[in-house]
């Protein structure tokens, strides 16, 4: 690699003040609000994400009511929503606004910022052995941009003409013309402003994650010893840094079209009783730009969840993750392919048919690395010693959702099959299973797994089980039957299915789904209750409650800013040495040197066929030297 540049020694993460385990310096503001500590920032992301999730799920129950009972009036709705629910019946425009904001909140705020923001921030420094992020300040900015963005998004719910209502994909011209739908007035402007802030936040977060993983790994932490969580966060960050800027470009042009009268996306439009001046633009252009982000975005949502799952499945099966290198390879493969499949969302927009085949090819090829992941998870369970802790249950649920939901992607990725299926509930079923269920389970699994590290206390396991079973069952009950409606041709974004005879036969199913969704919604209170009470009154956790190998469990129960009070431990092996033959315990943490490993009586390490652990060890001499003062 390149030569060491002139600034021979630079001090990073040096802390001029003393560390005592429980004591924090500075005041409330610098410790909890404008903190640059990655652990605090992670919690801030988590809590904001959870709040946004509650609002998003709440919106879904509202519009589910409308779908199940299209002809019924609920006077309480009028009480709460005022003019948006005259006589207790949702206004069609407001229905679309709810769906749009539900999608936006869930995809961007909960599962992009919420998921990556929480776990990338929390785990990257802890698991690679760093004191903090490459830049704590930018990290803090990242959170506050996200916060500002959330606030603006929430404010947009209360503007006179309602929030954005053109779908989370905000296709122009609908999103560009206030005459087309009320939500495209101030609400859309706020949406775009919030999104610009959000993109800035994602970029700041993303570049920080990349720089940290590349530069701040502790001694011995080579890339083939990184936990798969870190691999996933790292690749996710790369996806974000490469794709979000393109959304920024798209949003910018849309802002110009909306505010200055340019015609980037608009052409030949007659609306509100008059023809508009716009000429020469193309709405399709926006779709290309949007999906160039939009498709990588869905993997930005999924990959961290899969990374978390890899770690959890391995820990709680007490078995090394099966095919570590294949797992890394498939992450990279999925990431690469995700940049060249975006137009599979646009098969029926009149694109060139030949291009369609190309995109179809790449789309279906993505199933291969995904298959590797799915099979490797299953192989990890095989002959394991599985502990059904709450994180493990969520991880298993995730794998099941991912398979069931991913398979329907194979139908949609086939351009010919997508002709009838596009924009039906088949798509809705697909992405809720793979995103709304699988990725959401990744979020939950992560919280259950690392809660003890975050707060030094344990979540109540029994409430966790209840939460899992309520959520798992209700999510399948909500989203599986949506395939039936999809195969029945029921369209997305429909305020009511009563206008079309062939769609109007699913009334009972809609009621069923809504009931299941409401049950799922209330099932979340098990979690919320558990989460809030355990922060304060939970049982004190032990240092390494799951008997895990990774570095985060070598920190004190309440790590201060800087994470390790002493020197950062060096790393001597990959993170998945569970149940190594001959080793006394069924786990072998990364930081234990070979000489200190406790073997069983009479076991000769030299004879161990696994003595040279699966991933080869490479000494990165010269790249990095660490000296403790």
């Amino acid at each position, binding site marked *: 690699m390149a030569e060491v540049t002139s600034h021979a020694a630079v001090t990073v993460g040096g802390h001029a003040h003393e560390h005592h385990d429980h004591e924090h310096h500075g005041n409330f503001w610098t410790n909890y609000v404008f903190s640059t500590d990655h652990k605090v920032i992670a919690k801030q992301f988590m809590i904001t994400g959870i709040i946004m999730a509650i609002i998003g799920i709440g919106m879904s129950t509202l519009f589910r009511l409308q779908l*199940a009972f299209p002809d019924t009036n609920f006077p309480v709705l009028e009480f709460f929503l005022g003019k948006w629910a005259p006589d207790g019946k949702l206004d*069609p*425009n407001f229905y679309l606004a709810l769906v749009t904001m539900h999608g936006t909140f869930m995809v961007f705020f909960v599962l992009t910022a919420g998921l990556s923001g929480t776990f990338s921030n929390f785990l990257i420094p802890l698991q690679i052995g760093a004191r903090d992020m490459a830049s704590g300040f930018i990290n803090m900015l990242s959170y506050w941009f996200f916060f500002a963005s959330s606030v603006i998004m929430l404010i947009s719910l209360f503007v006179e003409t309602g929030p954005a209502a*053109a779908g989370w994909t905000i296709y122009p*011209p*609908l999103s560009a013309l206030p005459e*087309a739908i009320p939500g495209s007035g101030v609400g859309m402007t706020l949406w775009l402003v919030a999104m610009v802030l959000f993109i800035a936040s994602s970029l700041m977060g993303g570049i920080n994650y990349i720089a940290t993983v590349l530069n701040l790994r502790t001694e011995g932490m080579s890339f083939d010893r990184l936990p798969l969580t870190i691999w996933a966060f790292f690749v996710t960050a790369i996806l974000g840094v490469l794709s979000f800027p393109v959304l920024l470009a798209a949003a910018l042009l849309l802002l110009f079209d909306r505010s200055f009268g340019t015609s980037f996306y608009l*052409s*030949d*439009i*007659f609306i509100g009783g008059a*023809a508009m001046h716009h*000429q020469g633009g*193309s709405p399709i252009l926006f779709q290309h730009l949007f999906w160039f982000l939009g498709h990588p975005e869905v993997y930005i949502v999924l990959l961290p969840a899969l990374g978390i799952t890899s770690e959890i499945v391995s820990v709680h099966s*007490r078995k090394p993750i*099966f095919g570590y290198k294949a797992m890394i390879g498939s992450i990279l493969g999925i990431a690469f392919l995700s940049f060249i499949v975006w137009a599979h969302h646009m098969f029926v927009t009149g694109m060139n*048919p030949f291009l*369609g*085949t190309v995109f*179809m090819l790449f789309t279906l090829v993505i199933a*291969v690395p995904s298959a*590797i992941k799915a*099979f490797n*998870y*299953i192989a990890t*369970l095989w002959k*394991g010693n*599985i*502990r*059904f802790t709450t994180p493990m*249950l969520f991880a298993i649920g995730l*794998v*099941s959702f991912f398979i069931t939901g991913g*398979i329907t992607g*194979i*139908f949609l990725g*086939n351009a*010919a099959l997508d002709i*009838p299926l*596009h924009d039906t509930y088949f798509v809705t079923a697909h992405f809720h299973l793979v995103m709304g269920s699988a990725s959401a389970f990744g979020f939950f699994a992560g919280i259950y797994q690392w809660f003890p590290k975050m707060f030094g206390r344990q979540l109540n396991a*029994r409430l966790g089980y*209840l939460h899992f079973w309520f959520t798992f069952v209700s999510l*399948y009950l909500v989203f599986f*039957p949506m395939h039936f409606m*999809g195969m*029945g041709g029921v*369209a997305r*974004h*429909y305020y009511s299915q009563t*206008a079309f*005879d*062939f769609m109007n036969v699913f*009334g009972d199913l809609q*009621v069923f789904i809504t*009931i299941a969704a409401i049950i799922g919604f*209330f099932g979340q*209170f098990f979690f919320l209750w558990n989460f809030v009470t355990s922060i304060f009154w939970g049982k004190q956790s032990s240092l390494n409650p799951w008997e895990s190998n990774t570095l985060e469990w070598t920190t004190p129960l309440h790590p201060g800013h800087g994470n390790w009070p002493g020197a950062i431990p060096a790393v001597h092996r990959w993170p*998945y040495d569970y*149940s*190594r033959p001959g080793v006394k315990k069924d786990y072998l943490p990364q930081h234990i040197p070979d000489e200190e490993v406790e073997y069983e009586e009479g076991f000769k390490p030299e004879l161990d066929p696994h003595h040279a652990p699966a991933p080869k060890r490479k000494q990165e001499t010269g790249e990095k030297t660490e000296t403790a003062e």
Partner: protein
Amino acid sequence: MDAQSLISLAQWLLVLILGMVCANLYLVFRLKDLDPFARWNANLINAWLLLLFMIGGFIAAAVSTGVWKEHFTLVFDSASEHGEWIDAMFWRTMAVSIFVTVITNVLLFYYAWRYRAREGQKALFYPHNNKLELIWTIIPAIVLTALILDGAFKWLKITGPAPDDALLVEVNGKQFAWTARYPGADLEFGETNVRLIDEGKGNTLGFNLEDKRGHDDLVTNEMVIPVNTDIEMKIRSRDVLHSATLAHFRVKMDAVPGMMTRFHFKPTKTTAEMREIKGNPDFEYEMSCQQICGGGHWNMRLVVKVVTMEEYKAWAAQQQTFIASYRQLNPEAGGAQADASEAEATAPQMAVSR
């Protein structure tokens, strides 16, 4: 759903919520040593629950599919030629999918149950097996290659050009209705431009009156097409995106302002035939809009009638040409009355080939 059942539903929900709240409080505040669940083996229970969930899930999926399958409009009884290819391919893909989903889910839940932690048991240290991994890379790759080839050929065939003698129909989307247009006797559409739209004068498509080709065009609020005839459907929008969807024909194409899109298909069953198949005397083919376009998106309905060629010609002969209805609405634009009657006279000869 009537009020009565709603109330009972609400009560039911309330009971459920209360139950959940109680369970919650019970679990949280119960003293540890009095806790009857304390001796439960959570590992065992969860392992069994997972297994039961899987078995119950598969049964439920199979049963409910049986219950709902008569409503699967999109995958049974296609009413167009290419639709039958799509349906067949859908079921081929479905066979593969069910196979894969069942195998993987069964293994997932079975292994989870089978290898639950037990006293004194140690997991097998088994970090990788290159041969196995190769196998499960290659097999999906082969299966997918087959699916890709299958799909790509069908896709290119479906999206390919229509035969020259295909019947031209244009559908125009606007918030929130579809309008159909036929080229009339000259087999050519007249020029239109959104800037010429004049709703008050009934020129909703923006005909350029100078363009004589447009005078004999037919503008209708229903779409009538002859069976077993190639239809070349042109699709346009005058305001936002719409998507012209004919579920029964497996047709879908976005309507994009400023751009013309198209779809070629060949209906194979008349409305009357379909009424018999479905056993529903009121059945109609419907065009819906499946691209979010505003508050009336859910209600953009156009009735599509598939009839025999004779019926189609008879229908076309009865329609008023655009210019005739325009002059009727705007007598002052009158001009040569003869012109109108001339155009009217040509309508019956409405030909089908381009």
